[in-house]
Every structure is written in structure tokens, then in C-alpha cells.
């Protein structure tokens, strides 16, 4: 393999692991990033000249450790870093090989998802640090400019170092909350991809699944972690069927099941069962259970209504109430569903799915005029063409 291709492959596969190992030693995300970047540039030159090293990962780590030491030497306040430099020099002399690089990625992900960082920053930093996306790729996921995203990432690394956000897995008293922050970040990466559409967003959805798998491996026997991976798999298994050939978004019940990835769906179901058997419910397990029920025939809507009620105890939000009202309507109780939806109007007035759900239920209640104006509001707020096409088709069917 050509050195350039080999380097790209190593970075694609092991960048997160190498970065985490470097942060464990430098205790500084920015220094670790810079050192790894310089090491990668140096690898191109050396590997081109001398051929691939026996362990490209070990070579990169060693080179990055040297670059980190150089970085400290260039620093004006050199005396403060003597301890860090001595530790780096010791690691560098030990000639790390790929197998011996300890996996520090769990500490890195808890650091990147620290609640003292803004939510969007947690998502961006996790994509950059753990998934190895370039700054340009992270910027594209948010439709931001590369410059703005680069500044956001730099500010985040500076805050982690400056504010003393520790590079460690939190202690037992903080663990459940902090784990939820990590899982929420992974879920947001997934939903960002989901909203972008089955093709444009596939990479982000797969990055989220990669992270969830990593967490299942690094935090074993944790039902919420298993529940989160199950939720992503159960949702992603239906990706190819989400949009009709004419571009309209389809709910699970209307999808062509031949397009579902049954292997992925079954894996999600098995994981969910493992998680539920641990008898410690949580929001991700409940969402996964709802996703699993939506893949069954016929769909057990009364059971979904109950699950949304349980979810509301963990996440008391208007969006959960909205989803519950939709399930109530699907269970056949239209007037009760409408009453539930109308109560959310002031909170969700700017939320497209609210108007879409309200329009649908009004139409089923036979209130065609009210439904027509609600569809109009939903179409005005729709972000994707698929949503617009779906809503327009529903509106046309009213006439």
C-alpha cells in the first residue's frame, strides 16, 4: 500500500485511540491534536522514504510524543512543564507498539461530553476527537463555515485545559448523569444525520453507531448504553425505506419492509432484550422499546402510549407529550389525542412536527378546514424536501 493511503487508513481506524493516548500523557487536548497532526505530516515524508514501519500506529504515537515534547520546549513558560515532559520522554523511550497502546478513549469521550461545554460543542468535539472527522467535515455536519467550527473547537480545548475539566471517567456519584450526557451527544450525532436524510446523513448515523458500539465495549453491562445502541440500530435498520421513490417521508407502518436491514434490526432487538433483562429502566431503553414496537406488525399502539408516559417521567418535555398524543390517536382515541395536542400549542408553535401531527389528527376527526390550515403551517416550517412532499401529499388528499 502507498504510504499516503496507509496513513489515511491508520488515521481513519485509530485516530481516536492515538489521540486519547496522547491526551492521557499531555493532559491537554490542543497539544495532543497539534502533536498528532505534526506526526502525521512527518509520517508522509518518512514512510515515503523508508517504507512503512512495522507498526504504523506505534510509529505515529512515538513521533507524536516527540512533537509534544518539542511543543513544550517552544513554550515560554517551560519550567511549568518539566513534569509533563519527563513523562513524555519516558513513554517515547519505551518504543510503544500498537498492541501496547492502552485504550483511553472512554476518558476522552467523557471529557468531550462534559456538561460544562455547550451541547453543540460536545457534539463537534466528539466527532473531531473520537470519530476522526476533519474540522471541515464537522463544519459541514452543522452547515457552519470551517473557520467558525475551527474556532469553536479551539475554544473548547482551551476551556477544558483552563477550567480544569479532568481527563477521567467520573466517579460513581456523577456517573449516571455524565453517562447520560455522553449518550445524548451520541444520539444528537445520529439525529443530525437522520434529519439530513438517508443518503446525505448516512455517515453521521454510522459514526454515532460506531461510538455507541465503542461505549458498549468500554462500559460493559450498562443497560442505558445497550439501550442507546439498540435505539440507533433499530432506527438505522429502516433507513433505506424511510423515503418513498417520490421523495416523501414514510412512517414505519407505511414502509416497504423488504428494504429493512433485518440483520441490524435483529441485533437491535437482542441488545434491547439484554438491556431490559437488567431491570434498570432509563430513557434510552424506553426509546429503543418504542422503536422496536414500531417495527412490529400490527403495531401495539396502547403499549407505545404507556412507554411514552414512562419516558415523560425521565424527560418531562412537550415533545414527549406530542409523541404520546400521536400514539393515543393511532390507538384509536382521536378526541383524547386532540385534547392532548391542543394543550401543547403555546410551547410547540414553532415546531414543524407539532403542526404536522395536529393537522393529521384534525383531518381524521373530520375537521377539514382546521386540518388544511395546520398543514399549511407545517409546510411553511418544513426543513427538508421529503417532509414538504409528505405534507403536501397529505394536504392534497384532504381535498
Amino acid at each position, binding site marked *: 500500500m502507498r504510504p499516503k493511503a496507509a496513513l489515511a487508513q491508520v488515521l481513519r481506524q485509530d485516530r481516536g485511540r492515538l489521540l486519547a493516548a496522547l491526551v492521557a500523557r499531555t493532559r491537554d487536548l490542543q497539544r495532543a491534536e497539534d502533536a498528532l497532526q505534526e506526526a502525521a505530516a512527518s509520517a508522509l515524508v518518512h514512510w515515503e522514504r523508508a517504507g512503512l514501519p512495522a507498526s504504523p500506529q506505534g510509529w505515529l504515537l512515538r513521533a507524536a510524543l516527540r512533537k509534544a515534547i518539542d511543543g513544550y520546549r517552544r513554550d515560554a513558560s517551560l519550567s511549568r512543564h518539566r513534569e509533563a515532559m519527563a513523562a513524555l520522554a519516558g513513554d517515547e523511550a519505551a518504543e510503544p507498539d500498537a498492541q501496547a497502546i492502552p485504550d483511553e478513549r472512554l476518558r476522552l469521550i467523557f471529557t468531550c461530553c*462534559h456538561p*460544562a461545554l455547550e451541547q453543540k460543542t460536545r457534539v463537534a468535539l466528539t466527532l473531531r476527537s473520537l470519530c476522526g472527522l476533519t474540522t471541515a467535515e464537522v463544519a459541514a455536519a452543522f452547515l457552519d463555515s470551517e473557520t467558525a467550527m475551527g474556532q469553536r473547537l479551539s475554544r473548547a480545548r482551551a476551556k477544558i485545559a*483552563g*477550567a*480544569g*475539566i*479532568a481527563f477521567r471517567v*467520573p466517579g460513581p456519584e*456523577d456517573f449516571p448523569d455524565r453517562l447520560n450526557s455522553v449518550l445524548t451527544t451520541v444520539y444528537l450525532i445520529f439525529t443530525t444525520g437522520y434529519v439530513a436524510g438517508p443518503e446525505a446523513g448516512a455517515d453521521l448515523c454510522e459514526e454515532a453507531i460506531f461510538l455507541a458500539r465503542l461505549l458498549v465495549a468500554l462500559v460493559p453491562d450498562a443497560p442505558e448504553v445497550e439501550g442507546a445502541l439498540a435505539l440507533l440500530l433499530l432506527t438505522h435498520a429502516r433507513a433505506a425505506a424511510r423515503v418513498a421513490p417520490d421523495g416523501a417521508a414514510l412512517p414505519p407502518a407505511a414502509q416497504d419492509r423488504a428494504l429493512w436491514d433485518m440483520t441490524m434490526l435483529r441485533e437491535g432487538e437482542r441488545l434491547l432484550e439484554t438491556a431490559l433483562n437488567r431491570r434498570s429502566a432509563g430513557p434510552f431503553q424506553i426509546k429503543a422499546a418504542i422503536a422496536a414496537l414500531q417495527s412490529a406488525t400490527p403495531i401495539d399502539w396502547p403499549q407505545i402510549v404507556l412507554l411514552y408516559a414512562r419516558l415523560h417521567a425521565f424527560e418531562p418535555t412537550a415533545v414527549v407529550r406530542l409523541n404520546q398524543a400521536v400514539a393515543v390517536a393511532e390507538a384509536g382515541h382521536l378526541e383524547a389525542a386532540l385534547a392532548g395536542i391542543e394543550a401543547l400549542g403555546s410551547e410547540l408553535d414553532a415546531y414543524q412536527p407539532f403542526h404536522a401531527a395536529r393537522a393529521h389528527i384534525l383531518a381524521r376527526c373530520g375537521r377539514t378546514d382546521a386540518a388544511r390550515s395546520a398543514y399549511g403551517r407545517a409546510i411553511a416550517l418544513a426543513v427538508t424536501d421529503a417532509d414538504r412532499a409528505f405534507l403536501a401529499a397529505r394536504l392534497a388528499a384532504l381535498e
Partner: protein
Amino acid sequence: MKYLLTLYAAPGAEPAPGTPDFDAMMDEYMTLGQGMPGVASFLAGEGLQGVETATTLRKRAGKVETMDGPFAETREHLGGFYLIEAADLDAALRFAAAIPAARYGSVEVRPVMEY
């Protein structure tokens, strides 16, 4: 690391003096003055008199100007501070969460610059 915890609240948001709630709150502040064993040690801390006693000073073109009141009109005012020593931000945040002002106002946690 050293952290400065500044306490902000709207005037009158805390329990009124003379009530049992006020006494309970003062006990909490006194306890925090001992530090939090295993989490953070107390270096300094004071409560401030009300904003109506504040004077803001600035110097422009060599001339001192003073103004009655705090620098900016904000709903929440600085009411006191703690200076603590803690291992990391998580420990500092745990101390901050125990400050009564976190319930009726907010607490800003800032690392102290090291030279």
C-alpha cells in the same frame, strides 16, 4: 487548582431575615466556610452588602469619575464569593452546587489565573 465562585441573585430572592428558612440558609453558608472534606478546601469567602451601597469608579483621561451603584443594570447582582482549592472542575462544581445561592440565583465558577 484555585477557583473563584461568584454568587449572583436578584435582590430579595433569598429567604427573608428572621425566618427559619433564613437561619437554615445561614447555617449552610457557615458550614461551607469549613470547606468540603475530600472535595474542596476553603481559602476565602465573604458576603457583600446590598448593591445600593455600591460605588463604581473609572478613570478617563486621568480623571476619576464615580457613579452610584453597580457597573451595569442587571437583574442578578454579585452578592458574595468563595475562593476554593479543588482538584478539578468537577470538584469545584460539587462545592458550587452546595451553595444556597445556586437555588435562588446562580453561581459562576472561574479558574484563577496561574502565573
